[in-house]
């Protein structure tokens, strides 16, 4: 009996001694080490960042970047067999699911904003989107000033009217705001002539135009009303995990690898319908690759 107790006591203290070897791991890294698995949150239709292909597999520019992050985690944690789970998220549930631990990494098209930084953390920006206008070519709209007394659509959850008013040329104009349920809906409003312009992230406009019935009937016009950085979402105040994510992304940007991935997804035909977005890198994104930053937009 005493012998058994001694063995137990010894193994307990051994366990206690062994613990410090893992002590430097905290937060998400600890969680991954303990569970042997990592859950990546992805979107279902954020083309070309994160969406489902014909086989219902999540693919995209952000998914490719995150695959590199996963590789880095495998070598960092010495876990070559790290299991990666995929969980689809929406713009409504992505933040709560990050906070309650359902997902560990969100690879989609999430704007890094100061308000969101109250809730979650963001990696350095891997894409910069500009809010511009998608119009029908036959509508004769070239600039903000042409929108006076015209119906302008945006998708619920964005504030194009404010952006238009803030823009200097827009100060003397009065637009009628209408709202679409989702991007496809808003685009349909422009297509059917209900709205004169769709004010939205240029990359989303490019995606909608590329996959429309007649892509040559539409164009993206006007100045950028606002630039927004997209970041990989991580948990808040989880510096060691964020450091690995950031380092991976920055290395990719410096080595030119990120630009290759960009070309693959933005300048070439992509699944599922082999549409080419033809969306060259913006000067803002080139600058962001030169000087990576995780600063959020106001």
């Amino acid at each position, binding site marked *: 009996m005493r012998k058994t107790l001694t063995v137990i006591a010894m193994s307990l203290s051994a366990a206690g001694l062994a613990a410090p070897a893992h002590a430097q791991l905290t937060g998400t890294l600890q969680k991954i080490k303990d569970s042997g698995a990592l859950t990546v949150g992805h979107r279902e239709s954020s083309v070309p960042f994160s969406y489902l292909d014909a086989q219902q597999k999540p693919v995209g520019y952000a998914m490719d970047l995150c695959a590199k992050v996963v590789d880095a985690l495998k070598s960092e944690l010495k876990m070559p067999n790290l299991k990666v789970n995929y969980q689809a998220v929406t713009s409504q549930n992505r933040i*709560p699911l990050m906070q*309650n631990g359902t997902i560990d990494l969100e690879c989609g098209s999430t704007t890094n904003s100061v*308000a969101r930084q109250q809730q*979650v953390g963001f990696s350095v920006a891997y894409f910069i989107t500009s809010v511009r206008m998608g119009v029908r070519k036959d509508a004769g709209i070239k600039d903000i000033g042409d929108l006076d007394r015209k119906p302008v659509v945006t998708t*619920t959850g964005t504030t194009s009217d404010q952006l238009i008013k803030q823009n200097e040329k827009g100060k003397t104009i009065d637009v009628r705001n209408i*709202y679409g349920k989702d991007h496809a809906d808003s685009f349909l409003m422009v297509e059917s*002539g209900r709205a004169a312009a769709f004010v939205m992230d240029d990359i989303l406009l490019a995606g909608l135009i590329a996959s429309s019935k007649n892509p040559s009937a539409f164009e993206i016009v006007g100045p950028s009303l606002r630039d927004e950085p997209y970041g990989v979402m991580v948990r808040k105040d989880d510096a060691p995990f964020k450091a690995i994510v950031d380092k991976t992304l920055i290395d990719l940007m410096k080595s030119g690898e990120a630009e290759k991935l960009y070309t693959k997804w933005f300048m070439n035909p992509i699944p599922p319908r082999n549409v080419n977005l033809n969306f060259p890198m913006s000067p803002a994104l080139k600058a962001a690759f030169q000087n990576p930053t995780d600063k959020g937009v106001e």
Partner: protein
Amino acid sequence: MDYHWDWLFFFRETDDGLKYYDWILSGLGWTTLVSLASLAVALLLGSALGVMRTTPKRWLVGIGDAYVDVFRNVPLIVQLFMWFFVVPELVPEKLGLWMKQDLPYVVIAVVGLGLYTAARIAEQVKAGINSLSRGQRAAGLALGLTEWQTYRHVRLPMAYRIVLPALTSEAMNIFKNSAVTYAVGILELYFQYKQIIEKTSQVLEITIVVTLAYFTLAFVMNRVLAFIERRTRVPGLIVGGKGGN
């Protein structure tokens, strides 16, 4: 779960100079307007259709039945999209353009939600009328009332009392269903809910507040109709439980 609670954000300023609670109040206003207007449309049309379906005239019954079949079997959001996106393309071009550019969206929302709910109310009114003994109509006709007068003075007053609890459910449903009208651009409560989540990311606070707001709206409707139910009760009529003896 490391959620950053911040109940005071409701008092912070939005981009347009209002406070977030102003957005919620304005959403509440639109929700109430759309719901009550749709309820009025639904009650009028639903009653007419319900009566039509109980008349001896086969063609009136046929129209009423067809209406209920169509509008009750198609999802509400699909019906709204039909009115919003499809109908303007089917009518003459000039009228379509007017529908798209000049007709306020709230009209489409009220028509869509009203016509949808009318089918459900028609079903209940019909059930109420059919629950009455056939002798009621026969007695009315024997007294020299016309067919319509038997509805007006004999059958409808009783039928409405019988189906009032079911109509109460429908009136509560309309507040909840009105959330779908955000899909045709109505800036109602659910729209503001999505808008505020996107702006602030304070998902839990706003979800709690909006849930309570919908609950309150539906509950007030419930109380109002329960009051009407009590006030219109006819002692002796076997309706509403405690009424008769």
